[in-house]
């Protein structure tokens, strides 16, 4: 088991390295793309271009540039933004992280609670009118564009119903948890609900499928034969086993969201998280910031993937040899 975990982490490191090289190549070595021309702006004369190239170290060979960038990013942690000279990339990301984590953790609590309750209820009520309802909710969740849903929520809470039902909704923005926990939750409530709506349905649908197939297993029949109550069988036996795939899916989704999939939600609700930072950097083609946020994102996704694999191997020894 330890060997498996070690090997998995080693391959995760390798994937991280490959991603950093890939991003670097996309921005610095795509044929016909000249980062110096981007930084210097339109119609820069050759002298300015040469000066920009030199001052940003763009006249050095590619591998040297890659190593320099990584050293400034990871070891010295003093990589500077190309656009706002003097502002450092790593502290910017560190500052934005709690916002993204607040958004994703809150939403995750909501969608897991709702998803598990709905999925279990749907499995208990299988074959009744609850089936099409759960299917509909699941399809709606995967079919709505996240940013559009956020816009519509903004329209309702900030304008259309702001004078009546939603007068208590604060304007879009973020308040730090340490500053005022009540305001923190209030500002994040609708972003949480929006993000959770996209996931709750699909989790409920998946869980229902898992529970229904678990209810056909032999060990459930044994439990029935022992005379256990239907509720105890559902919760203690069927649900428990069915949660394994849900938990592994959750690990992947959580990692992806912290890593940048929440970008659109952050942009729409004006939350200054890592996604928003990436978005602003992309608008300005601020390559060092993009490099930093993408590596940060890849770190979470790769870590989540590795943890899920290891957890799976712990629960199901057959997976260790796959």
């Amino acid at each position, binding site marked *: 088991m330890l060997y498996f975990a070690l090997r998995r982490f080693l391959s995760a490191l390798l994937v991280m390295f490959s991603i950093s090289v890939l991003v670097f190549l*996309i921005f610095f070595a795509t044929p016909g793309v000249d980062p110096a021309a981007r930084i210097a702006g339109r119609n820069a004369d050759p002298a300015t271009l040469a000066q920009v190239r030199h001052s940003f170290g763009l006249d050095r060979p590619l591998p040297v540039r890659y190593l320099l960038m990584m050293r400034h990013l990871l070891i010295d942690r003093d990589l500077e933004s190309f656009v706002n000279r003097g502002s450092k990339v790593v502290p910017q990301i560190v500052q934005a992280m709690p916002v993204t984590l607040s958004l994703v953790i809150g939403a995750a609590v909501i969608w897991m609670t709702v998803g598990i309750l709905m999925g279990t209820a749907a499995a208990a009520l299988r074959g009744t009118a609850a089936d099409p309802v759960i299917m509909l909710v699941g399809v709606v969740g995967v079919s709505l564009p996240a*940013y*559009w849903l956020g816009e519509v929520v903004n329209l309702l809470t900030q304008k259309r119903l702001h004078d009546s039902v939603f007068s208590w909704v604060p304007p879009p923005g973020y308040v730090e948890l340490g500053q005022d926990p009540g305001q923190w939750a209030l500002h994040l409530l609708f972003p949480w609900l929006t993000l959770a709506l996209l996931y709750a349905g699909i989790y409920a*649908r998946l869980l229902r499928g898992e529970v229904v*197939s678990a209810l056909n297993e032999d060990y459930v029949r044994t439990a029935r034969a022992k005379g256990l109550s239907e509720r105890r069988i559902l919760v203690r036996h069927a649900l428990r086993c069915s949660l394994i795939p849900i938990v592994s899916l959750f690990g992947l989704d959580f990692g*992806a969201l912290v890593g940048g*999939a929440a970008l659109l939600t952050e942009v729409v609700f004006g939350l200054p998280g890592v996604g928003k930072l990436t978005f602003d950097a992309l608008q300005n083609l601020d390559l060092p910031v993009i490099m930093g946020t993408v590596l940060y994102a890849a770190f979470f*996704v790769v870590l989540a993937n590795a943890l899920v694999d290891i957890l799976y191997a712990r629960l199901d020894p057959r997976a260790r040899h796959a």
Partner: protein
Amino acid sequence: MSTLTDQLAVPEARRRSPGPWRTAAADLSRNRSAVAAALVLLVVVTVALLAPLYADHIAHTNPFQSHVSGTTVVDGRTVPVLTPSSTGLGLGVTPIGPTWDFGHYFLGADNQGRDVMARLLYGGRTSLFIGVTAALLCCVVGTAVGVVAGYAGGVVDSVISRVLDVIWAFPVYLLAICLSVVLLTDGLSLGPVTVEAGSLWLPVVIIAAIYVPYVARPMRGQVLVLRNKEFIQASIGSGAPALRVMRREVLPNVLPTAIVFLPLMTALAMLTESALSFLSVGVQPPDASWGTIIEDGLGLLYTRPTVTIAPGLLIALTTAALNVLGDGVRDALDPSARLRGGV
């Protein structure tokens, strides 16, 4: 009078057996929600294809034509298409709202005075085109990569699998955004293939590329199982070249999976296209897609929400229909999925 050999050649039961594809089609046509979804899609596609007809003969405009100082007649009164904003600093304009009259500005105008209904129909063509072609490209490439990796094994498999791992671990939106940001200004030139900056093919290629692992990985898994089956071993044993085995024996067996992926990938590609366009790194102006119209409506959200709401509803409707149809296709081609308890 039939001879003995005739009778032996095609048994009666075999002659009547409709085959797996026919059975699946019949299954699908009995699935009411899948049929409803297919009808919804048919309507959306037809309406989008009729966009020039609407623009030329009903609304007498086109999706690119600005009417900055134009006027139109509503309820017998002449009103300007764009009204300068009277609140705040007096900057910006308020375009005309929905007239609910197909002849002019059915859904109002955007802040350049363009007819939103005309843009919506043309935008639908763009969104559907990108969604369908990206999904097709992704499924074709993903299937090819998966089949080759699974069948070849060894070093080829290791290399392909590691590359797929890296793309898989890369947050999809970030990868798409990175590629778009770089390629949108300069275009792409890879050997003989040149894609102009601002071309619709650029989002197609980017979206197809980022989702290749979604198709290739399960394909590879299936091929790994197939490879040990007797009929494949027999084909290899009888000296068939690898390409022939892959094409004649492996491919027909993984084709149903690729077909199941197609509607689901189209939905995913359309959602991604709209998100990229919303972030202004997808479809480039003056072309419209449903995502760019939502972006156009951003500044008008509180005054003219129809500009935002209408394209979003169409995206949701289309992707929901594609997902329901996809589930139906999966059930029809893989009846065991339904027996396993999927909704």
